């Protein structure tokens, strides 16, 4: 009963957010995010139709469509990256390096797995594959959110909502899939509610922050000193070294 309430509430909220985006024309600003939401809603309704009309197909369809949602989620991350770092070329440069590093690590891991086992399969189970997909998403979001926090990059309320809601949901997915792979946890019915509850929470966050379009804050104008990065970093380094020398407590000891 509780699962059904969650399911209907989730779909209704999704439909409401989508309707609101059409009314406020926000979907034009964040097409990938609204495409993701539409895909999730469509998949849920498709699952419901299959469950009602062809129950034998439901299980197979469930796992295949689970990958669809997880894969489309990468577009959301790309959109967050594009919007958040467009006015911060320095931070964007670091983000690109980080994304390439994660990509290289994933490719290396897949190749090592392929070489280490003769009968290698992408993942032992469907849940494991989804967990791996979500873990890579978590890593990418970790990089982007870390840069946003470290460089204090100003973002619009809309983007904050998308980033926070999606990050929270991906975090909950990784945790629930990781713990769910343990035999003790998988059997507990309450454990299966973690993902739907987290998604509903994310939907409420999106509903609140995407009510109307809010433009990104204007980038600050650059001064002459800020253009010379080398000079700036040398200055900061010198001041940090001097500040550290104060900690000798009283200069010469």
């Amino acid at each position, binding site marked *: 009963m509780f699962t059904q309430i969650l399911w209907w509430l989730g779909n209704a909220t999704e439909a409401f957010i989508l309707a609101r985006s059409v009314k406020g024309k926000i979907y034009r600003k964040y097409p990938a995010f609204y495409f993701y939401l539409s895909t999730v809603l469509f998949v849920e309704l498709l699952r419901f139709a299959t469950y009602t009309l062809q129950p034998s197909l439901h299980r197979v369809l469930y796992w295949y469509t689970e990958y669809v949602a997880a894969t489309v989620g990468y577009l959301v991350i790309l959109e967050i990256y594009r919007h958040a770092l467009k006015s911060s070329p320095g931070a964007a440069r670091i983000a690109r390096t980080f994304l390439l590093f994660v990509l290289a690590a994933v490719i290396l891991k897949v190749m090592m797995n392929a070489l280490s086992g003769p009968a290698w399969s992408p993942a032992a189970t469907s849940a494991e594959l989804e967990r791996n997909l979500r873990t890579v998403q978590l890593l990418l979001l970790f990089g982007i959110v870390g840069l946003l926090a470290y460089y204090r990059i100003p973002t619009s309320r809309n983007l904050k909502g998308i980033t926070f809601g999606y990050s929270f949901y991906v975090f909950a997915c990784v945790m629930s899939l*990781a713990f769910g792979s343990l035999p003790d946890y998988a059997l507990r019915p309450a454990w299966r509610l973690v993902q739907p509850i987290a998604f509903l929470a994310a939907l409420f966050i999106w509903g609140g922050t995407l009510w109307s379009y809010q433009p990104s804050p204007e980038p*600050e104008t650059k001064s002459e000193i800020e253009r010379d990065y080398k000079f700036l970093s040398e200055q900061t*380094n010198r001041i940090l070294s001097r500040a550290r*020398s104060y900690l000798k407590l009283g200069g010469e000891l």
Partner: protein
Amino acid sequence: MSQLLPYVGLGLLFLVVLGLWVRQSFVTRAGRAELLVPRQHRSGVGRAAPLRDLGERIFGPEDWDFVSRDTSSEIQRMFQRERTILALAWLRRTRMRTSQVMRAHVVAARQSEDLQLATEIRLALSYLLFLILCDFLIGLIWLRGPVRTRRIVRQGFHWAAGLRATFEQLMAIVDPANRRALDVGFNQGTAQS
């Protein structure tokens, strides 16, 4: 169960970063004001003399030597209490000013197109080390008072110097050629700091 550790570790780390970002997002207006504040202070931090002089006076042995020689134990306790408050305030001020400089740096650096990843990592680590040291000293002074903390710090530097000498002797025996290269590195590091 051990297979869970990477996921739980990554998840917790992510939660911390997300929490920091969310907390920061709620004070966006203050963050924008920081763009101006550090520039006003930048030259102030650059002027090392007042802060350093103050630190030398607070932690210097002269006042304590005088108080411990010529006054009663009650006055000595009072002196220690007052000096602890002063030392903590000085350290917090140093920490705050350095943080302002670092904030001004990251705000300016994020717009720079020729930003260097290695330089940024070095600065971030340097700042992190400073914060750890500062917080450690604040804790130590709060627990033991500035006079005893100064002794501990002095002892720490002596140990570090001793360790370095031992390490150099060891390197001279194991690899004389490499030792010369290491000497240059140490000296450059000392010159920079």
